[in-house]
């Protein structure tokens, strides 16, 4: 056999497809028998079990295919066209591994493998609710079949390179040769693919007219973990862009970035509004469509970036697979609409809003704003296409558009982040409003005044206005969160006699969901504060010789030397810059410019000195061909570090929210009672 590993990989994919189709067919037949009550030759339970086992084996088969591709990368098997185009012999082993998701075929394989992995876990845990899991498992098999069809027929990762096989590969895109690129795509894909699970549960629960809201309890952890993966994936991407692309920013409103943001926005809306369904039996149709939309947006994002519909600076190669995604998207939408129309009477709400000033109402407005934000991003992403259709010429929709349209929406969302948790369920009395809102309002106004005295000029510059609003509202939200914490902790302290810290810990343990959510909100505010610092960025560009100086914001950069070096993978030019602040030596920075010989491309390696106050971000832009001296661009970006700290806080908050709460006996019995009522009244 001339190509054993690619052949093994191809057959694994083919086997996986057969297994997934079998799982879908048997699962579908079993559910149809159960729904109609018609008995076939084989009992529906047995059909369901064989479908489940086929689903589990699909994971094994796709894993074999993924292993085969990674193996081919590590053994420099350039008979595989994908490996030839995305690796080379001297590539670092970690990047050889990341070749799995460096190109279109590989990333589709990763998607399929992660989907199979999620399905594997779901099918192993089927005893949580056998019938509901059978529905979800069958829907997952349907999605799995689509991706495997793509891999087998449209974008096969094991295609053999025709003709003579070159001795070395063409190399990995230099921009992808950065540590974060080893974890950013898998994180993002874990988020994208993960939303298939709550989607499958929601659709399954609707198909079988699942009584009560238990499916939400079952999928809550799936949804939160998925949301966390997507959040971390997005911010790892932002950090990668900041560290590698070298333009001084971290978010460029590129269609690929927008594609990841849209499902995040609807997923966040779902996480909030689903609480209303869980607690009050409200917004059932809304929630179902939110999770449907979230899943469809993950597919749409892939469609946008792969079909060539919109141009993106870091989209994968355009190809005909866009048509597959069009077809799949239409199919998913039709299935969702059909099931919704047939079963919509099952989604009748059990309670109505009692007051406009209530937690429910705030959730509703929070959802509204998140969806408007999602629409704005989608609108901006698709407008160039629309413009070409209407006017005959494309328009660019870049950062200035989003900064003007999306930032006010974001600020309003920040406002609701502070207001929502201060309102009570059902209805909020005037006394409660007065009690809860006085301190945050004072903090907001005081911060605004303080910042204006600190020379922020909101009337001169729009970005300063937005920054001022972000800082002020942020202060208000943080005060609201802290006062909620302190109020609860004081109650616990009075009850138990513990100190404030121990009382706070106990408070969190008693209600991990609530206080985990507050921590996540706190993280969001910290991120927004970091983003708001962008209004005060400074930059300068200068050609420097030995001993020349660059001055920026109290820093002085002295060029110690500039030289070049090379290794097997790339040649590099770099400058050594001694950094002084107010005359005192601080550190040495070495911004680089690399040339990768395998791929014949250039790359910038940023030198960054990050502090809580600001980042001193330095780029080696290249050499002036006339003088031979390097051109250095330096940025002073305030508060950037707080963005990454905010993400860590969000991770912490999500873990807290995922942890089981230590509930008093009374609360536990109350939950059981609520569930019993919901089950009784739901069907």
């Amino acid at each position, binding site marked *: 056999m001339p190509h054993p590993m690619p052949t093994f990989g191809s057959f694994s994919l083919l086997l996986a497809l057969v297994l997934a189709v079998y799982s879908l067919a048997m699962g579908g037949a079993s559910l149809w028998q159960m729904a109609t009550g018609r008995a076939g030759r084989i009992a529906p339970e047995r059909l369901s079990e064989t479908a489940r086992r086929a689903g589990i084996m699909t994971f094994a088969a796709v894993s074999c295919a993924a292993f085969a591709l990674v193996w081919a990368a590590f053994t420099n098997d350039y008979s595989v066209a994908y490996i030839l185009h995305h690796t080379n012999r001297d590539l670092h082993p970690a990047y050889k591994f990341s070749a799995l998701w460096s190109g279109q075929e590989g990333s589709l394989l990763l998607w399929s493998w992660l989907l199979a992995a999620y399905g594997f876990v779901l099918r192993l845990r089927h005893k949580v609710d056998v019938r509901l899991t059978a529905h979800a498992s069958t829907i997952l098999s349907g999605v799995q079949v689509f991706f495997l069809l793509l891999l087998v027929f449209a974008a096969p990762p094991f295609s053999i390179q025709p003709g003579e096989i070159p001795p070395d590969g063409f190399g990995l895109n230099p921009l992808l040769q950065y540590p974060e690129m080893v974890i950013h795509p898998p994180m993002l894909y874990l988020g994208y693919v993960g939303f298939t699970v709550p989607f499958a549960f929601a659709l399954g629960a609707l198909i079988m007219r699942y009584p009560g809201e238990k499916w939400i309890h079952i999928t809550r952890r799936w949804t939160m973990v998925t949301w966390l993966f997507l959040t971390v994936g997005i911010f790892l991407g932002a950090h990668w862009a900041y560290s590698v692309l070298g*333009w001084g920013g971290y978010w460029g409103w590129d269609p690929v970035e927008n594609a990841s943001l849209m499902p995040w926005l609807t997923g966040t809306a779902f996480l909030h509004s689903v609480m209303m369904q869980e607690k009050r039996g409200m917004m059932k149709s809304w929630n179902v469509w939110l999770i449907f939309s979230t899943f469809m947006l993950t597919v749409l994002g892939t469609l946008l970036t792969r079909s060539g519909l919109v141009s993106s600076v870091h989209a994968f190669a355009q190809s005909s697979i866009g048509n597959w995604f069009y077809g799949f998207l239409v199919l998913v939408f039709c299935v969702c609409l059909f099931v919704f129309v047939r079963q919509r009477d099952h989604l009748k709400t059990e309670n*109505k809003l009692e007051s406009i000033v209530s937690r429910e109402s705030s959730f509703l407005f929070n959802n509204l704003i998140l969806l408007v934000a999602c629409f704005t991003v989608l609108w901006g992403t698709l407008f160039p296409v629309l413009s070409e259709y209407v006017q005959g010429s494309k*328009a660019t929709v870049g950062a200035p558009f989003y900064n003007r349209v999306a930032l006010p929406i974001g600020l309003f969302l920040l406002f609701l982040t502070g207001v929502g948790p201060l309102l009570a369920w059902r209805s909020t009395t005037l006394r409660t409003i007065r009690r809860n809102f006085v301190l945050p309002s004072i903090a907001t106004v005081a911060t605004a005044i303080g910042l204006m005295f600190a020379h922020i000029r909101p009337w001169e510059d729009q970005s300063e206005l937005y920054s001022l609003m972000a800082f002020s509202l942020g202060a208000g939200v943080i005060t609201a969160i802290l006062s909620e914490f302190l109020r609860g902790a004081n109650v616990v302290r009075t009850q138990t006699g513990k100190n404030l810290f121990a009382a706070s810990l106990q408070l969190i343990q008693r209600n991990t969901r609530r206080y985990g959510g507050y921590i996540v909100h706190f993280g969001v505010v910290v991120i927004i504060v970091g983003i708001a610092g962008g209004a005060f960025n400074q930059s300068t560009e200068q050609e420097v010789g030995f001993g020349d100086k660059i001055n920026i914001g109290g820093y002085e950069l002295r060029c110690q030397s500039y030289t070049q070096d090379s290794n097997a993978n790339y040649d590099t030019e770099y400058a050594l810059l001694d950094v002084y602040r107010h005359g005192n030596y601080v550190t040495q920075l070495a911004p680089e410019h690399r040339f990768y010989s395998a791929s014949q491309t250039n790359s910038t390696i940023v030198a960054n000195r990050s502090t809580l106050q600001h980042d001193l971000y330095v780029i080696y832009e290249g050499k002036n061909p006339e003088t031979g001296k390097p051109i250095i661009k330096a940025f002073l970006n305030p508060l950037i570090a707080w963005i990454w700290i905010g993400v860590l806080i969000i991770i912490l908050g999500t873990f807290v929210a995922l942890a089981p709460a230590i509930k008093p006996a009374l609360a536990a019995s109350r939950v059981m009672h609520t569930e019993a009522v919901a089950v009784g009244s739901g069907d």
Partner: protein
Amino acid sequence: MQISSFMHRLFARTLRHRMVQLGAVLFGAVLLMAAADDSGTRFNKIGHAMMCACGCGQILLECNHVGCPDSDRMIGELRTQVASGGDDTSIFNWFAAKYGPTILAAPIRGGFDTVAWITPVAVFLLATIGTAFLVRTWVRRRRNTVTTPEGIPVQLPENDAMRERIRRETEY
């Protein structure tokens, strides 16, 4: 009861006074600090509203790739245009005429481009008004008829203690 009412009125009046004082301080602060100087920012502002023509997809003043065939020339042209004293629109028009409409980083040509700006705002307003109307309808309907999960009409619990208990029990 009378003392409580008096205290309430006193508190409201004090609060009003404080708000007026706060407003005066804010207004004064704004007046004191209003010292506009936009001479150095115009080049930066316009340069951040245009794309680099090389196809890198970056904002003109942020294009940083080595040996870019366009950014240096374009930045030079921008300096000349700003120095010539033309207004922002004429500068944008000059660049759009030379490099095509995609050189503008946002749809600002007027006509159909205006739709790009109006639509999100319109959606936001319509959605807000729609949601507010929906909430009001629900609240009114809820006030008119309240039923148990089994559909039996019940009276609203007017008792504050009962409402407080419900709130406490459903809060997390």
